[in-house]
């Protein structure tokens, strides 16, 4: 059996194989941590920072992305502390301000109770999560797309902006993209938040509500029957 380490996530002691990440260990326990740039089967990338968790080190604590944080012995982690929630919300606000039409992001806003985007909206049509790039390279063994530029001028591109010879026409990049394929076309943004389908009422969800990041209304989740 693989080496196991023992750590504490949200007050619960768990054992996880060495080499796995805090995100994987938490998901294994059924804890929901929102993610955007993580995708099972692709190398963790640590770019969207939505999956941050609070790491307790003695009297001090710090925040780190759980998708790239390897588990270690004696680690104490909180996945949904006040500090985590506060930072996560602002990060989501920043994400919404760059891609207000992403349904994935709007759904997350509804879940997390983000009701307003306080930053200037600059629709960039891409959150630079790198899923497409990694999918292309790691799953298709292609490498037709990559990042170009730095800072806010960074973008996903192909060599010379043409469909590269390496492209296998799999459409995987579009399929995996949280912005392209799931664009919300309602076009009813109020302060950066979509007033469309999901944000109106309490949504009844599963028999037992684990407050996941699946689509629900601003009132949060309600287990059906209750």
């Amino acid at each position, binding site marked *: 059996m693989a080496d196991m380490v023992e750590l504490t996530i949200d007050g619960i002691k768990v054992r996880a194989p060495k080499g796995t990440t805090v995100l994987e260990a938490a998901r294994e326990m059924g804890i929901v941590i929102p993610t955007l740039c993580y995708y099972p089967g692709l190398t*963790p990338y*640590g*770019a*969207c*920072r*939505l999956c*941050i968790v609070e790491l307790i080190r003695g009297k001090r604590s*710090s*925040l*780190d*992305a759980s998708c*790239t*944080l*390897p588990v270690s012995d004696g680690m104490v982690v909180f996945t949904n502390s006040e*500090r985590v929630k*506060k*930072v996560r919300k*602002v*990060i989501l606000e*920043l*994400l919404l*301000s*760059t891609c207000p039409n992403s349904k994935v992001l709007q759904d997350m806003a509804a879940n997390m109770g983000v009701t307003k985007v*306080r*930053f*200037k909206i*600059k629709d960039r049509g891409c*959150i*630079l999560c*790198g899923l497409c790039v990694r999918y292309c390279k790691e799953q298709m063994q292609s490498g037709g797309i990559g*990042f170009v*530029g*730095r*800072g*806010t*001028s*960074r973008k996903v591109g192909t060599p010379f902006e043409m469909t590269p010879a390496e492209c296998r026409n799999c459409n995987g990049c579009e399929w995996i993209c949280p912005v392209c394929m799931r664009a919300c076309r309602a076009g009813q943004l109020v302060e950066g938040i979509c007033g469309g389908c999901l944000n109106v009422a309490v949504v009844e969800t599963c028999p037992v509500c684990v407050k996941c990041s699946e689509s629900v209304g601003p009132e949060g989740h309600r287990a059906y029957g209750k």
Partner: protein
Amino acid sequence: MARQISSPIELKTYAEEVCKKKERWEMVIAVCGGTGCSAFGSYDVRSAFTKEVEKLSLSDRVLVKMTGCHGFCEKGPVTIIYPWQYTYVSIKPEDVPEVIEKTIIKKELVDRLLYRDPVTKQRIKHNNEIPFYAHQKRLVFQHNGHLDPTSIDDYISVGGYQALAKALFEMTPEQVLVEVEKSGLRGRGGAGFPTGRKWRFCRNSPGSEKYIICNGDEGDPGAFMDRSVMEGNPHSVIEGMIIGAYAIGATKGFVYVRAEYPIAVKYTRLAIEQAHQYGLLGENILGSGFSFDIEVREGAGAFVCGEETALIASIEGKRGMPRPRPPFPAVSGLWGKPTNINNVETWANVPLIINKGADWFASIGTAESKGTKTFSLVGKINNTGIVEVPLGITLREIIYDIGGGISGGRKFKAVQTGGPSGGCIPEWLLDTPVDYERLTELGSMMGSGGMIVMDEGTCMIDVARYFMKFLSEESCGKCVPCREGIDRALDILTDITEGKGRKEDISLLEELGEVLKDGSLCGLGRTAANPVLSTIKYFRNEYEAHINEKKCPAGVCKALITFSIDEEKCKSCGKCAKVCPTKAASGKKKEPYKIDKEKCIKCGLCRESCKFGAVIVS
């Protein structure tokens, strides 16, 4: 040609030989070839000296050489004449014949070229008596000013490579490590991590192949400490690296220098080549059986490439982008091998510690911060330049005693330490001792040693905006808080400087600052908020004036100021009308001049030109 030195004894004998050879020079004229001085034309001064010395057939007695940065860039080109150590400042090629005639031949001083103390008005003969130098403690820079950086013999003549011999022959790697741990040396490149502890991590990492790296990226605008070390005394860095490699068990080293530093690249390469020829680098160093080699890698000059994981990616030939840690480089660094990375100045401190001992080193500085630190002192200060001071010295001492106070008789406003993502420290905190912890407590940081002094004519929001702009362009763009957060902070700050600030902006900036600190992937994003948070903390009233009263108290933000002429003070000289590019300033003789607010583009030329201070900004 290649002279292999194959034992410590041979090194000693050779050092004596070189010293003897040097005695033949009766006089040495050392012209500073540092960044500042060469910009002031020190290469021409050197040529003039060489020509003159040849003309008068003095070449067998007088040596003319170019050295690394002396630090006193404000008064460049600086020239020191040994053995008397006469120091001439702001010297021009035209002055050279006179210097040769008077000082070299008649042994007299050329008074007008000596530094004049602005307070006592006295001329000062020797550099160590000039207040700028007198308050410093130069260890890393002790030889800048008389060493020829292109000559390994020069370095050997001042005891160079003796620390290496001592480490290799009198100490075990463990003893070297303990010595560095005991010295309390902390990283000079940023976070101030204890160097010995870092070395031990790497040494203890499993693996037979290990690397060490010297971080000479120095991407902070206005900083040139590391450059001055590499250009002034490259062998000290090489020696430090070999000693470190021995302690860590590394087989190969890399010096990463930005390509914008061609001289640093050239001199480091030369130093490596010379060390090779002498048997101080390569196979079986000094006959000890220890082998180690160093290569230079040029960086393309991105600020983020100074971050260790980005730097490693860059050496590997990948995009210079930070990656999450752990794994730390000590476990998995360059090509997945255990790697130890230190700053240029950190490495240069190592030979000093081995030579003089950990106790000596630990006796300098404060309880937690030992040794000296170099700073590049720039901005609105009388003596710009490179300074080296014992840690624990106060900011006030650096700015007033060494820096000579604020230029132009204006008032001090703030000092920014730690490079673009450092914080701005106000007047009332100037008596804070400079060490890693204190600066962090104040919301700033040591960084790699940038120090920018600002006077009363500086708008702190404008300053914060400037640094956010720099950082937004230098962010690698990978993670959301840094890429978008800095950009939005910049938007908000720009709005404030343009009079479009909203009441909630201050708290929004503070919130954004916390998110940057907590949420970003690497040190760039994690420290990026310092300029904003520190200016809000110490200069909140200025933010409020911009937002609530739509006023810029410092008179900098164009959208918030108007130019007018004080009728009482105006002498109708017409200067303002002459310089005004839009003819906004105009008037008639004997009547006070006026500024047409419609036409005025707020360039400020009239204010600068008015001798009577009649142009008011409000």
